[in-house]
């Protein structure tokens, strides 16, 4: 029977992992599933690779969700995007072209230990669940642990703080595994997208300084096109711009690291809403939030197939 999976509710880590297996099993020509390592607590870090299998060289888009455990709409979006890509491949010429010409590396839950903990113990947990040698407090902010301006402004060196940068860069096995994968595939990954919540923003580098990126005009127009596509769904406005001025300065972020690592289009989405529900976005809003964001991501991906002057 058709695999019954409800994309309009939030799912536990176990449900998401069995869903990934099912997507891999039922779509052998478009999906490949593999693990890039294990979390601090030993859970596998699964990736779904979407795209038509071809021998020829394909550019790729990386999308990770669930870096911060309490931001549940992130993993919901990654699942929704996979569903949309696979279900619309037959009838949506834009999605078919993207899947034929690009690969999408989707990481539905980056911070698997933290996400599990937010389901079982602390609904507002943010960090990983690694142990600290000297303090009782656990966890590192997985978006302050990257080797780019590590532990500078906007990060904390105190293990009990929510923005704790960790004992050293890439101290977190989850961060190290993704950094290693992206370093290995840096030639083909042309866009890095990290899904967070909440603020309704589309951010691009830099986070750690008030400076303009060299390919600003290309990235700026990609962001503008993306938020316009997003707006076309339900009229929801997203602000966009460099993270340092649009949101706040923060160091050691995955987006800055991806950009510094040679990925020319690096973005961070802060999905709905602007604070009415905050991290508790109701399940009734999963559909519109993911529908509009899928339009934005498709626009970013389509932009990779054109040359930016």
């Amino acid at each position: 029977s058709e695999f019954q999976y409800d994309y309009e509710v939030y799912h536990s880590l176990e449900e998401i992992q069995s869903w990934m297996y099912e997507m891999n099993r039922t779509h052998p020509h478009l999906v490949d599933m593999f693990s890039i390592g294990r979390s601090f607590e030993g859970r596998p870090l699964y990736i779904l690779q979407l795209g038509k299998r071809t021998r020829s060289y394909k550019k790729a888009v990386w999308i990770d969700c669930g870096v911060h455990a309490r931001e549940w709409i992130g993993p919901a979006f990654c699942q929704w995007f996979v569903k949309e890509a696979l279900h619309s491949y037959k009838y949506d010429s834009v999605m078919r072209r993207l899947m034929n010409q690009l690969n999408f590396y989707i990481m539905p839950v980056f911070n698997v230990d933290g996400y599990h903990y937010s389901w079982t113990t602390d609904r507002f947990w943010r960090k990983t669940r690694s142990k600290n040698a000297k303090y009782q407090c656990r966890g590192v902010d997985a978006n302050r642990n990257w080797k780019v301006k590590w532990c500078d402004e906007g990060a904390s060196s105190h293990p009990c703080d929510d923005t704790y940068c960790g004992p050293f860069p890439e101290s977190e096995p989850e961060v190290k595994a993704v950094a290693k994968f992206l370093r290995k595939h840096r030639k083909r990954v042309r866009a890095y997208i990290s899904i967070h919540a909440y603020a309704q923003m589309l951010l691009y580098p830099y986070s750690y300084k008030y400076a303009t990126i060299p390919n600003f005009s290309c990235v700026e127009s990609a962001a503008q096109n993306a938020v316009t596509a997003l707006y076309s769904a339900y009229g929801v406005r997203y602000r966009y711009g460099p993270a340092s001025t649009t949101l706040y300065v923060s160091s050691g972020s995955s987006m800055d690291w991806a950009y510094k690592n040679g990925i020319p289009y690096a973005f961070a989405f802060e999905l709905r809403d602007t604070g009415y529900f905050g991290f508790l976005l109701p399940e009734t809003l999963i559909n519109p939030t993911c529908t509009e964001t899928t339009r934005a991501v498709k626009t970013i991906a389509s932009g990779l197939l054109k040359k930016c002057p």
Partner: protein
Amino acid sequence: YLYNNRYAGDQVIRVTPVSNGEVEELRRLFANLTVDLWRPNSAALIREGGDVDLHVGRNHTRGLRAGLQRAHIRHKVLISNLQSEIEKQTGYRSSRKRR
């Protein structure tokens, strides 16, 4: 109850400091109270004119709001009972399952 009802009576409050003095006052308040900052992620990132969304435990809501009123800092309650909002967020599924 989800999470053993640990969030019953907790609140989410939005504070909007309009001067540097109010930013400093907020930081002082948060230093003494355990608050879970939702936005921005740390007190160091609080800026004049920027919204601060914070989750405060039921035992501290009164103290915090008294402190904000004393300092005449504009604030409003975004979520008055966090536990019921948590139940609602995924409770929708159980009602759908019942249907």
